[in-house]
């Protein structure tokens, strides 16, 4: 998928903001937010930077690529599109984009995981505007997203709900309950995004519980499925856009990603899961993410 196709896809949206940034700008934004993720987690001394970096390109495309209809000034607007980060441990990615979009000041990122800060280890919707669901217990976000989608249907609202899960998270039974029910209820205003980084906590997915191939299973569950490189910005934009046109069934985007994407020594080592980069390594990591 090249840039031209993505641009066409974005143009198809009548209500997309007039000034949707170009792909180069989005790539630069994602790089900057990767730096935010590393800085805030190293400053906090804990957190999940690698899980956040695999997800950040998709998240930037959603929030800054003109996909998500949202207004940071009105975080509870009933017509807003929803993004639910079900893999709540990747909260630094969510906090970075919410700050980027003006839900709160960038300075707040430095308070991550500190007592009194609304930027908790896992997202808390009661404390931070823009957070759509309190997650952290893996497996729960898709059902919540389905609830939003059904509410939208009852009220005749045209918002769309995106839910991002981890590929390890997909092992939770509740995910498959929600997959069955989303398809049965024909929730075509619901999109599942799987951050398929091939790794989980205690090991790589292949060694823990290898359920691959995922896309075939999702299709068998009657979801419309697109498979993309989750770091290819034009491909991400095109997929996020095109799924909204699908009628009669929910959609899944299987985003093939790399855990720790952007920092070579994190990419190469799955044991970085749930670990902040040391202060000593931070400069080395940031050097790989220079503009």
């Amino acid at each position, binding site marked *: 998928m090249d840039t031209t196709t993505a641009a066409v896809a974005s143009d198809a949206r009548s209500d997309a903001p007039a000034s949707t940034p170009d792909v180069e700008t989005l790539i630069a934004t994602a790089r900057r937010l990767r730096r935010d993720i590393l800085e805030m987690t190293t400053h906090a001394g804990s957190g999940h930077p690698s899980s956040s970096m695999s997800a950040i390109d998709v998240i930037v495309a959603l929030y800054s690529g003109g996909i998500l209809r949202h207004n940071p000034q009105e975080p509870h607007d*009933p017509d807003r599109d929803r993004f639910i980060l079900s893999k709540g441990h990747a909260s630094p990615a969510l906090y970075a984009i919410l700050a980027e979009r003006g839900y709160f000041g960038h300075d707040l990122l430095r308070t991550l995981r500190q007592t009194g800060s609304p930027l908790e280890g896992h997202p*808390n*919707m*009661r404390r931070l505007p823009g957070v*759509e*669901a*309190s*997650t*952290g*217990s893996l*497996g*729960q*976000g*898709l*059902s*919540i*997203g*389905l*609830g*939003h*989608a*059904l*509410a*939208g249907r*009852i*009220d005749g609202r045209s918002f769309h709900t995106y839910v991002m899960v981890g590929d390890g998270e997909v092992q939770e*039974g*509740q995910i498959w*309950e*929600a997959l*069955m*029910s989303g398809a*049965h*209820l024909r929730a075509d205003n619901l999109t599942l995004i799987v951050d398929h980084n091939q790794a989980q906590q205690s090991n790589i997915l292949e060694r823990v519980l290898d359920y691959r191939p995922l896309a075939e299973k999702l299709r068998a569950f009657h979801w419309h499925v697109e498979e993309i490189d989750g770091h290819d910005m034009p491909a991400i934009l095109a997929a996020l856009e095109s799924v909204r046109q699908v009628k009669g069934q929910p959609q899944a985007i299987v985003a093939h990603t790399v855990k720790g994407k952007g920092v070579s020594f994190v990419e190469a080592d799955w044991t970085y899961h749930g670990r902040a980069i040391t202060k000593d390594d931070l400069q080395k990591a940031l050097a790989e993410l220079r503009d």
Partner: protein
Amino acid sequence: MAATAERFELKLGKATRDAFGEALRELAKTNDRLVVVDGDVSNSTRTEWFAADHPQRFFNVGIAESNMVGVAAGLAAAGKIPVVASFACFLLCNAYDQLRISVAFPQLNVKAVGSHAGISIGEDGPSQMAIEDIALACALPGFAVLAPADEVATRVAVRAMLEHDGPVYLRVGRPKAPVVYGSEADFPFQIGQAVRLRQGNDVTIVANGLMVAAALQAHDRLAETGVSARVLDMPSVKPLDEAALDEAARETGAIVVAEEHLAHGGLGSVVATAVAGLRPCPIAFVNLGDTFAESGPGDELLEKYGLTAADIVRGANRAVAAKRQG
């Protein structure tokens, strides 16, 4: 269930699950925010009556309680008032983490209704009997926990539940329940309030659910032996009416708590904790203890597992004796 009527010496009314289903149907007429999420048991929980009127606001997600609760959380977050109903044991035990993190943590306005609570469901046996639901629901921060006694009480409780802003657990039962309240005027209930059914000075019987009827019967039997028992219906386990308990401890100095639930974490535990902190006095407990029940007619099980008026009378006498010993 004629034997039940005989045992309680009270007229049998509707099952509390029926009263719930009817109240829901009635209240849905004027409340278009109400939605129902079901896990393939709407004909047991009686949400089928709501579904018949409002198919577009009713979602049967199949035998998948975790997803059921999660969907309710999403509906609540989007401004609906979802009632999520299943057998109490499946709702609380199968979807506990979802009640905890998807609902309680963000304090979403979800109404969790567990039917078939207690051992009085009878023949279906222990796998279908919720005997720990009150303990589990009480351990969900911010949840109100309600266990009404009969048809009228349930109708009032359903209304209170829907008016309440925040998560609620409502426990209802399968068998026909003895009539405790003649009309709504007899049941001046708000969440957090006990209802005093009988005045008395020697001992206070605190009960909820099906055990309220047994408490009334125990009151009469105790009176025959010269013991004056106060009877408090405690439909609201959380928040608890501490003022009524404080008054009971002060004025009667002895308490017996009766519930169709395990010993640990139910009404007895909650009352004992409160009384210990307010005005310690002897307390006796009438409950299932630390065991599962078994299959059998509900009446026989209540008898066999110690949940009758006679058990309450014995408990009351124990508490009174302990008080006299000082």
